[in-house]
């Protein structure tokens, strides 16, 4: 079981640093809605755990992994399909997301982010007296 990585880097109030050049690949993401939150799953093969940054600033969730994919291939290249470069993806968080309750896990090239819905938007069951 992968351990929850709670060491999130949060820069509330600051906008995320602009990416400093180099090729960038956008990792594909699945977005699943649950009753009390959302689950974002991103495919980022080759990214190293310690080098992935997940930041939230002013409603923007930014996922970055610098130079995750190897650079030049040495030897005689027979196939070259893997996109070189870093990973970068941004998500805009609406009002219904609790900005402080984001969890991230990284395992086997897949980053899983769990976002909690803020209390106001959670579906509530109303009992009839």
């Amino acid at each position, binding site marked *: 079981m992968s351990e929850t990585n709670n060491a999130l880097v949060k820069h509330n109030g600051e906008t995320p640093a602009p990416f400093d050049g180099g090729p960038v690949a956008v990792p*594909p993401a*699945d977005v*699943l809605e649950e009753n009390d939150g959302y689950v974002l*799953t991103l495919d980022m*093969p080759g990214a190293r755990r310690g080098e992935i940054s997940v930041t939230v600033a002013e409603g923007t969730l930014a996922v970055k992994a610098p130079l995750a994919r190897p650079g030049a291939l040495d030897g005689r290249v027979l*196939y*070259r399909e893997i996109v070189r470069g870093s990973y970068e993806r941004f998500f805009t968080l609406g009002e219904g997301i609790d900005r402080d309750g984001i969890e991230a896990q990284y395992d086997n090239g897949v980053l899983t982010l769990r976002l909690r819905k803020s209390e106001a938007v959670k579906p509530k069951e109303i009992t009839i007296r």
Partner: protein
Amino acid sequence: MSLVRWNPVRDLSAFPSDVLSMRKEINRLFDNFFQGDLADTTSAFTSAWVPAVDIAEHEGDFVVRMELPGVKKEDVKITMQEGVLTVKGEKRQEKESKGLDYHRVERSYGSFQRSFTLPTAVKSENIDASFTDGVLQIALPKAEEAKPKQIDVRVK
């Protein structure tokens, strides 16, 4: 302006050569695809998705790198038979029982299979495969007789 007799055949003679060279070009593309150094026999029928791969040849070995994020090690099968390397397996969808609705599905799932015919013989028993951060890396050392060897020329 002097009159030049119009020769309809002369104009047409330029046309076939252009068409022929284009045809030669297309034939060459097809030839390279089917009998190139490394014939890729990816089966479109058994693959739900096609993982990206990098293959490089060095003096002593081949290195294959395939991106398989989210695929479990036990769901990957690597086989080497008669000079053909096959990597097949399945990427399973996580079962989210609490899930209400998928708003976006961009990732690929399902079975995959890719086969590569290697141009030179490899030592099957020394093939090494490792899986880190969703990237499968396979090192295939070349068989002794396939390695480039320096041949000394005897001078009488």
